[in-house]
Structure formats: structure tokens, C-alpha cells
């Protein structure tokens, strides 16, 4: 079923928004997100998509308009990247605080200055604590399928949280891959029409959304409620992903996807397209039995899966395409905190790689794994910078390999 097309992940995401029947799409252009919204424009222009496209004047306005539309009870989609996401940041938090199941694609791009349009995850990581569900994908097909799944999770009455699907700039956004674009009927039967909750902006049942709340009133309870719904989203994502796999015959995994992990001694953990490269690297590592854990869901964080799948490993190699300056990679922080307190917990070695689109090849991954195996447990640095220029490497500084 469906139709095979040679498209990139941006176009795949646009197809998904169309198939999900997103009805209001406010967007502002930013490289490399533009082809998402241009493709949607084409769909609307050709009459194959029935949606209101709001060509807003900024990303801040894009998310504000998405909030207005979603609060009026319609399915809403937008896409942005990098500076755009940062500029949008205030209202990104507002969307989650308002409990609106808005869907968004982030085409992950480095943050300036200096200007850099290539991929890393610094933009998405900046919104880690916004209350959005965050998923990273590693192929155009997975981007399409995840955008469809996204609404089913986000709109669940026990979740009601916005959802962002993160795709790596250029590596996915501009690379053409064969993608199966499902039929509308298939998608409709998987993702029913959006049924908004009763507390929407409706003159027949007036509510006031987001007015002032005093410290002794429910502010903290509302935050707790978001946290609880995140937990619910974990359960649901696994379940809905299985359902998707059964219906569409494509299994991208749930919160995580394990590859050759079961009897491995070393595990690579990564997000986005680094996972694809790591998968390719696996067969080329001859120093230890190595498997891969693709982390798809970053928020809510798959703590239980991490513990279950990694606790018996000797070495866990975490590749981060972003950096929490002054500490380590964000993914490594989460993995370490999940494994903390476990008897004979694995050695966790973190590498900062590929910032600003610097290439990370399978050979790099092989050499990082080999380094990680050898580094003595009591000498492990919070993070190692891998792939810096010789000029820096020749200084032989700690934490630079």
C-alpha cells in the first residue's frame, strides 16, 4: 500500500502533515526548514490539502498562532530550526503550559554565532525542559511515520502535550531517499479526526486559559500534571508505535530501538542520524562485541529502557551532537543519571561530535569505541571532544582526543 517516492525528510514531513490533516499551519521560513513549508504550500495550491496556511512574520508568531489555532480545537502543525526555535522559545513553553497538542518538526541546525546552517542538536536541546515531547529520527521514512504517530500520542486525553519531531539538517532534510507515502485512507484509519477536549475557546462554554495563578493555588500542581502526562506519553508511544508497525509494516522502534544489543559488551547510544552511522559502524568494530541503542524519545526520557538494556554492559559510548557547556553532552547526562546507583554500572564514555555539521563517519565511531574501551574507569572525563582540528589536538589537552 502507499506510494513509493524519492523525497527528502522535509518533504516526507510535509506529506505527513497533509496525511494527518493538519488544518492550520503557521510558519516562517528558515534554512533548512523551508522545503517543509514550501511543500505544504504546493499541496494547498494544488488543492490536495485543505488547510489554512498562515505566512506569519516570525517564529514567535508562528507558535503563537499555532497556540491560538490549537486552542480553538483544530490540528495544528509548524516547522522551524535553530535560531527560529530559539526565537520561538517563549511560546514553545507557552504551548506546553497550555496543554495544547501542537505538532512541530525541528530541522536541527547549529546555533550562531557564527552563522552555520548545518546540523547539530543544540537547538532542540535548548527546549528540553519546555514540556514538549521530543523525538529524534534517523531517516526520511521515520520522519514521515513519526509525524503521524506524533499526533496520536500528543492528542491522547491523558497526554495533551505538544510534540516535536527532530530531523538532522541536510543529512535528512535535503537527502533524497525512497519513502513510502501511505494512502490517506490508511492514515485516517490509524489517526482519527482530532477530538479536542471540552475546554477549548468556545463561546458556548467560556473558559479563561492561562490567567494568573497564585503560589498557594495550582501552579505547582499544573507542573506536576505535565510531568505525569509525560510518563503517560512513554507508555503510549511504545504502544502506538507497535500499532503503527503492525498496520504499516514498518518498525522504527518505540522510545528506543536496540540493534545487536542483547549479547554485546559495548553499547553505543545516540540520537538522530548518528545512530544510522553507528549502525553501519557496528560490523567494523572488532575489539569488542558492540551493539547500538538508538534513543528516539528524548523527552520523556526512556529511563527504564536505558536501565534494562544497558545495565549489564561493560562500556557505554554516548555520542552527543550538542554540548551543555561546562559539563558534558546532554544525552550522556541522562544516560549517566539513569544508570546511577546500579551495582557494577557500566563505564559511560561521552563524546562530543559533529557540532555545526562536522562530518562524523563510521570510522570515527569505530575509533571512539576503541578509545572508550581502553580508557581506565577512574580516568573517564565528563566528555571527550572528538574530531577537533590537529591544531587543537596537538596541544594534548585533557578531554580532547
Amino acid at each position, binding site marked *: 500500500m502507499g506510494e513509493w517516492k524519492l523525497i527528502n525528510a522535509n518533504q516526507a514531513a510535509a506529506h505527513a502533515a497533509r496525511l494527518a490533516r493538519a488544518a492550520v499551519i503557521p510558519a516562517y521560513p528558515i534554512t533548512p526548514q523551508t522545503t517543509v513549508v514550501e511543500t505544504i504550500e504546493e499541496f494547498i495550491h494544488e488543492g490536495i490539502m485543505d488547510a489554512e496556511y498562515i505566512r506569519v512574520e516570525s517564529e514567535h508568531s508562528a507558535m503563537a*498562532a*499555532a497556540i491560538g489555532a490549537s486552542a480553538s*480545537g483544530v490540528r495544528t502543525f509548524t516547522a522551524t530550526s535553530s535560531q527560529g526555535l530559539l526565537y520561538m522559545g517563549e511560546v514553545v513553553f507557552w504551548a506546553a503550559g497550555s496543554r495544547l497538542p501542537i505538532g512541530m518538526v525541528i530541522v536541527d541546525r547549529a546555533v550562531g554565532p557564527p552563522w552555520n546552517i548545518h546540523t547539530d542538536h543544540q537547538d532542540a536541546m535548548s527546549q528540553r525542559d519546555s514540556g514538549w515531547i521530543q523525538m529524534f529520527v534517523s531517516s526520511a521514512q521515520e520522519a514521515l511515520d513519526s509525524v503521524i504517530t506524533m499526533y496520536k500520542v500528543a492528542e491522547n486525553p491523558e497526554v495533551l502535550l505538544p510534540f516535536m519531531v527532530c530531523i538532522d539538517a541536510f543529512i535528512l532534510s535535503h537527502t533524497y531517499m525512497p519513502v513510502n507515502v501511505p494512502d490517506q485512507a490508511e492514515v485516517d484509519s490509524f489517526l482519527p479526526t482530532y477530538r479536542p477536549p471540552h475546554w477549548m475557546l468556545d463561546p458556548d462554554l467560556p473558559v479563561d486559559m492561562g490567567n494568573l495563578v497564585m503560589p498557594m493555588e495550582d501552579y505547582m500542581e499544573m507542573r506536576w500534571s505535565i510531568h505525569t502526562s509525560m510518563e503517560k506519553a512513554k507508555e503510549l508511544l511504545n504502544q502506538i508505535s507497535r500499532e503503527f508497525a503492525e498496520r504499516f509494516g514498518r518498525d522504527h522502534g518505540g522510545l528506543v530501538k536496540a540493534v545487536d544489543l542483547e549479547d554485546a559488551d559495548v553499547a553505543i547510544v545516540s540520537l538522530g542520524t548518528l545512530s544510522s552511522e553507528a549502525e553501519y559502524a557496528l560490523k567494523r568494530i572488532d575489539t569488542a562485541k558492540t551493539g547500538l541503542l538508538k534513543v528516539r524519545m528524548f523527552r520523556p526520557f526512556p529511563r527504564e529502557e536505558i536501565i534494562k538494556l544497558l545495565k549489564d554492559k561493560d562500556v557505554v559510548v554516548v555520542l552527543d551532537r550538542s554540548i551543555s557547556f561546562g559539563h558534558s553532552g546532554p544525552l550522556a547526562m541522562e544516560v549517566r543519571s539513569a544508570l546511577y546507583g546500579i551495582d557494577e554500572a557500566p563505564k559511560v564514555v561521552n563524546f562530543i561530535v559533529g557540532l555545526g555539521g562536522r562530518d562524523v563517519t563510521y570510522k570515527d565511531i569505530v575509533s571512539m569505541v576503541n578509545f572508550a574501551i581502553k580508557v581506565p574507569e577512574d580516568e573517564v572525563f565528563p566528555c571527550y571532544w572528538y574530531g577537533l582540528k590537529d591544531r587543537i589536538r596537538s596541544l594534548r589537552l585533557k578531554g580532547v582526543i
Partner: protein
Amino acid sequence: MVLTIKDLMSRERTYLPGSASCPGCGASLAFKLASKVLGRNTVYVVPACCFSVIQGPYPKTCINAPLINIAFAAAAACASGITRAHKITGRKANVVVWAGDGGTVDIGLQALSGAAERNEDMIYVCYDNEAYMNTGIQRSGSTPQKAWTKTTLGGKVQPKKEVPLIVAMHRVPYVATASVGYPMDLVRKFEKASRMEGFRYIHILSPCPPGWGMSSNKTAEMGKLAVDTCFFPLYEIEHGKLRVTVKPRERKPLKNYLLAQSRFRRTLSEADVEELEKEVVKKWNQLLELEKLDRIV
């Protein structure tokens, strides 16, 4: 149809008593009047401003209509999302932004301009109390020249930003100024706006007792004097045609208005009053010239 006071009195309340506004709040008076005209079938969008507080705290609200609070800079954008969603759902309702001057002329100007340029179907209302009052009286782009605020201790140097005219230059169907001192003029403008489609903008001078340094009973009087001195002229621009809606038979001396408010009293010399008066007369005459044109845009 021209609404009378009796008509308004018979209308359902959107603004329920027991709000958090200061006694004599011009913004509340403006909302009471506007919401009587707009009726219950109206969705409101409120950015950060006094009205974020006036609604009252969770879990109650004194606004008996659907309302969404949104970030400071984002009101017109949020309303754009609502009005487009209505196109999808087929709902017919007024979409009204209710924003202060900071959220309109400063931080919200980008979103306002975007929505105006797209001619989004909404009524954007700026209730202008001429400073950031909610945060404790700081200067905004809408603060008049010479007015004291906590960030213009010697009086503001620059003149007030002319946002109604800026909005008019977007060629929107309707722009009007109004004052709570002329309530029936205000009512008539809302009536007219609510019968039109596209982007409509109403800028209401809303006296603010604590911010202006006057007692709470002066709200109506100051709202009226601002117009009678030509300090804040009332006009409307319908499809580009400007019309002054209130022309004082005899312009009152500006000092009657300025010296009744301590925000001016504390900074003004006699020479300043003269200077400002000249400016007011000049701008008033310019307005009368604009009125003679077939269309100003």
C-alpha cells in the same frame, strides 16, 4: 442600528463585577463598554498587560467569554491562529485582541503589523494607559512627551508613537481612536467595527488613576478632557477615508488636562505647556487636513 444606553444595559454581561482592577480603571470601563457591544459570541486574546491581572486569579475569572492569555509579543499572532481555525471549523465569532499599549506599540508591534498586513479577520483593541502600568509605571512608546514615569523621571523626551496611523498605512478596512470619556462614540465605533470584516483596529485612551497621578473619580473627566483639548483626537479611518468623529466646539486649554495629572504636573514648566499646546494645535490642524483628502491611504 445605533445602540442606546438602554440597549447596552439590556445586554448580557461579559465583564463580571469583582475584578482585580484598581478603582476607576479606564481599561475596565473600556472593556465593559466594548464587550457589551461585542456580546458573548466573542473570543478574546490578552497578552501581558493590566488585563492579565484584571481577570482575577485562577480558578476564577471575571471575563464571561472565552479568553486566552498569551505571551507579551504575540497577541495578534495568536488571534490570527484563532481566526484561521474558525475558517476551518466554520465558527462565526468575533476574534478580539485586548492589549495594553506596551503589548501593542512596543513588544507586540511586529505581530500587530503582520496580522494587519495579512488583513486577518479580527478586531485589535489597544487600551492605552500610556505606560507599563502593570509593572509599576515605566515608559512605553505610547507615553506622551513630558510625562513622568519611573523610567522618565524628568519627563519623556520623545513624543507618543502614532500607532493608529501606522496601522492605517497597512490599508486595513477600519482604524479608530476612542476614549472612555466619550463612551457612546466608543460604542458606535465598536458597533461599526463588529459589522465589518478583515483587520480592524481600535485604540482607546484609558485613563489610569495610579499611573497618571489622579484620583480614581477623574477617569471619565480626563478621558473627556483629552479629547476636548485636542490632546487625543477621536477619529476613524474607514477604507482609507479619515473622519474626525468628535470636534470640540471650542478647544479647551491644554493645561486643564495636563495639570490635573501629577505625571505632567511634576515635570512641566509653563514654557513646556505652551510648547506642547503648539504641538497639539499643529497636529490637530494636520488631522483636519487629512480629513479633507478622499483617502489618506
